[in-house]
């Protein structure tokens, strides 16, 4: 078995998820303010859903197609959120997603985690393109992507049905060549 990487930033440690994280994951995600902003989560989010998310993260790591990190605070080991990168290997690209539990909003954690995972994608995974989809109304998340160096490429109009409403989704990306020059 390969070793799952641990990434460190100034304030955060990004590590492998463990099944023991499931209850806190469930608590943080079972919040309409969090899931309401995500493309692929809906309420209620059960403990089984949390376990399934964690075992899936192990499987994609083993397959070499995805790295899902538990975002934790170095100061006290609190699990504050999630950040992952999922690969399309044949096209040398990776999609990032992330969320931060509401008690930990507005402290720059998502930006700090996303920047680190982008760096991991280019330096360790050798990707050519890193991209993300974000609900257009979620301006806080758009700022995270911009601060991580991604730029908006376009809008997939009414491409997701969320709580009975068709919503616009923006797509952002950063290319390796731009990451290298802006490093």
């Amino acid at each position: 078995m390969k070793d799952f990487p641990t990434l460190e930033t100034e304030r955060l440690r990004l590590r492998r998820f463990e099944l023991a994280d499931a209850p806190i994951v469930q608590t943080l995600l079972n919040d309409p303010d969090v899931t309401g902003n995500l493309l692929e989560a809906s309420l209620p989010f059960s403990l089984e859903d949390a376990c399934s998310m964690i075992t899936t993260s192990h499987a994609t790591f083993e397959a070499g197609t995805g790295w899902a990190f538990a975002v934790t605070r170095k100061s006290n080991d609190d699990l504050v959120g999630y950040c992952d990168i999922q690969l399309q290997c044949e096209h040398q690209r990776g999609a990032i997603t992330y969320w931060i539990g509401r008690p930990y909003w507005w402290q720059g954690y998502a930006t700090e985690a996303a920047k680190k995972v982008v760096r991991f994608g280019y330096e360790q995974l050798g990707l050519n393109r890193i991209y993300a989809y974000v609900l257009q109304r979620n301006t806080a998340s758009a700022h995270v992507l911009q601060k991580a160096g991604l730029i908006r490429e376009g809008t997939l109009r009414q491409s997701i049905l969320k709580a009975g409403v068709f919503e616009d989704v923006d797509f952002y990306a950063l290319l390796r060549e731009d990451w290298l020059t802006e490093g």
Partner: protein
Amino acid sequence: MNPIQPLDTERLRLRLVERADAPALQALVSDRRIAETTLNIPYPYPESGAVDWITRVLERREQGQADCSFVILRRSDNVLLGAIGIHPDDAFQAEIGYWMGVPYWGQGYMTEAARRVIQFGFEALELNRIRAWYFTHNPASARVMQKAGMTFEGIMRQHYVKWNKFVDVGCYSILRSEYEAQRQMD
């Protein structure tokens, strides 16, 4: 699901692909210029490629999945010109993909077929959004999308590796509201 009846336009008939289409499809789709301008068609095209594709389509259809893969026929002489598909996924949306045999380029057939499939998507499949992707090195495909009433949404830079090169993918779509407004204008 009832079998889908052929869709007619002024010059074309779109009908669900059948086994007997394999030789005509194979002859047209194996041209290098088709692979060059489509997302997922390889070159060299395998000898059994058309037969294998039709087999997969028929399997999906037998399993009751909504597979709308049409061949494009010219009504005047019943010649097979190309293929077009509309593939619904979640959220009331679908992607259309198409190719036209090289001898039949430049005659507006693709636009005529795309418009008909879009109509089918909104009226028969009750979709809300229909999207299409193209390689930016193939602006002819973007023009088909424009002429079919679709709106440009952006370019996914270097999104695909095609023949060992990173290529840009352009995105178009049309929404039900836009389709209905265009019908009013016609």
